[in-house]
């Protein structure tokens, strides 16, 4: 039986189709119970995308957490996401780090590769080119640690796949603004 095609929303269909953009938002929030659930729930509840999300307390004395969210959507949707986040009571500040190219983004990945002989040599060579560090090794495997922009990690993982990729663990993006000023 054919599942009925999901009907296009008559509301969004009538809107001018805008280009989908990827943005990185930095959210400073009180590190109180449930704050992450509020942020994540906002995205699921309103149908926004989360591509990656990282969170950690950054100022212990003030119980201040920094949440970095990579999201995608039309410019007006990104705007809406920002203002919806600002509306959450424990949220102090929301900054769009993708505006004007002011954000610096890094992600850490650990990549497990298994192989012998030529594949092993290839893996080492590529790791060297990507400035990946070996953090664990056996006679038939390596674990590489790699930091960089998410795209760089994607690229490295793609290269490892034919060589013998076993698994990948990624932290998600941490981001900060360039220059002397805080966000």
């Amino acid at each position, binding site marked *: 039986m054919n599942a009925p095609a999901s*009907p296009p929303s008559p509301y969004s269909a009538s809107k001018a189709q805008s280009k989908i953009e990827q943005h990185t938002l930095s959210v400073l929030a*009180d590190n109180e119970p449930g704050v992450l659930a509020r942020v994540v729930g906002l995205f699921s509840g309103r149908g926004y995308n989360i591509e990656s999300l990282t969170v950690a307390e950054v100022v212990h004395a003030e119980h201040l957490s920094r949440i970095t969210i990579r999201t995608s959507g039309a410019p007006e949707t990104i705007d809406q996401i920002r203002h919806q986040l600002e509306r959450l009571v424990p949220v102090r500040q929301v900054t769009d780090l993708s505006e004007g190219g002011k954000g610096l983004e890094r992600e850490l990945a650990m990549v497990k590769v298994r192989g012998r002989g030529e594949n092993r040599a290839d893996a080492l060579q590529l790791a060297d080119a990507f400035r990946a560090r070996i953090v664990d090794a056996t006679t038939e495997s390596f674990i590489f640690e790699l930091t960089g922009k998410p795209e760089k990690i994607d690229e490295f993982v793609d290269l490892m796949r034919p060589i013998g990729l076993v698994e990948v663990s990624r932290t998600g993006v941490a981001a900060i603004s360039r220059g002397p000023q805080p966000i």
Partner: protein
Amino acid sequence: MSKEMTGAEMVVEALKDHGVDVLFGYPGGAVLPIYDVLFQQEAVRHILVRHEQGAAHAAEGYARSSGKVGALLVTSGPGATNTVTGLTDALMDSIPLVCITGQVPTHLIGSDAFQECDTVGITRHCTKHNYLVKSIDDLCRVLHEAFYVATNGRPGPVVVDIPKDVQFARGVYAPPHNVQHKTYNPQMDGDTALIREAVRMMASAQKPIFYTGGGVINSGSPASTLLRELVALTGFPITSTLMGLGAYPASGDAWLGMLGMHGTFEANNAMHDCDLMIAVGARFDDRITGRLDAFSPGSKKIHIDIDRSSINKNVKVDLAIVGDCGHVLEAMVRVWRSEAMHAEKQQLGDWWRQIDQWRGRKSLAFRNSDKVIKPQYAVQRLYELTKDKDVYITTEVGQHQMWAAQHFHFDEPNHWMTSGGLGTMGYGLPAAIGAQLAHPGSLVVDIAGEASILMCIQELSTAIQYRLPVKVFILNNEYMGMVRQWQELLHGGRYSHSYSEALPDFVKLAEAFGAKGVRCYDPAGLDAAIKEMLDYDGPVLFDCVVEKSENCFPMIPSGKAHNDMLLADLSDDAGIELGAVIDEKGKMLV
């Protein structure tokens, strides 16, 4: 003065300190310590409801009719989950509530204990904010914060979940003193430069209109006064959403009636054709805009709202002023006066002549009958027979709600309580109880439908217990009327499960509760029956048996623009061929 006391005592102390004189609630295991404290004091009056949903709606009715915060107290588990509909309703309509829920003791949390539920998890999406208080040291701060968050900025419901051991624990309570939240500080004043720009745009507009919403009511009575002043100064026409009725008097010259799906011909056409729209405390809901890409295509739009995320959410605006509408309206009036602005009189004259033409269509007219009571006529008679009284109206949800909005006229804010955003059947009777408690000497009428009223009918027992003379005016057409109307429009007249079968005898039902029942079938006897209801000093269920197949017009069909309205066809008994009017796209809309 800081004092040591138990957590339960702190709760009651905080209620007193925040001016709560009426608390709606229902006891249970996890709130017994708080009930024990309530038993030993008299400052806070506890109203025992019959279902926790009723407590939430009653608190809403109390809050909306008084401008104060509504408070409720319920137990853990089912007590908390039963409030979810009311909390969501309050969130959608921006009603300030503080809901105290009991919770199982902290050491049992997460163990699936008796009457345990994840209250903060469940209510996270239906509250403005919520708290689980795990330590007595946090309780005092959280209680004060809860009142602050509920009432400041865009108002909304706040849940404070208190485990039973925290209610027993002793700690230090300090009264609220300049309560400030470390992160939540909403912007009240609008940007002066933007306000000046807005006034300039207004002064040069040729076809302006004010479009106002519930935000004007929520801002407090000064906002309504200022709105009236600004309308008088500018001479602009004004329309309002369902939630905003009463902010500008329905008897005012500039009033065009409600806009939106069941709004008037003149209001919707003026919205469509205007060249400047000034949205004040309204949020461009889909019931207002109709088809978005055809919504007021030729106008510049100014949007005043305290919630930044409401701006550009559904409709892109040209000038956005973030701030409390009372503050912004005050500044607009001041700037308009100081710069001696005056609207283009000649041009406005043309605009008003156009509006008068639309008014001439008399879009709320209906064909009356001397054989059967028309629901619109029933609301009209109720209005005429009560307009010399201080009357507060609540409603349930459906056709009767729209007829009440169209044919009952409000000259003051806070006199009209209806579930606008969530559309909650069952809202009206408990809300009427809340309004009656806030205004003991006034007349409170719940205009209801026979289906809706059965959703919270148990609260009639509450009205009896506290001798609250609320009147329930049921427009009984034996159908979930709005569902039936849509089935007629969209589903080929297949009335799937919308007939109210096996209805109770409402007169006997009233008597069983200890209230008075009145029934009326006859248009000629309607006035006398309404008077009988009004003269009775106690709760009344009025079973007003009306025309079964009446549709609610005017109507903007789903997916249509404001200038594409359906009007009641008064010349043809067969009515309008509705099925052909809505296209496939429109049928997908709700």
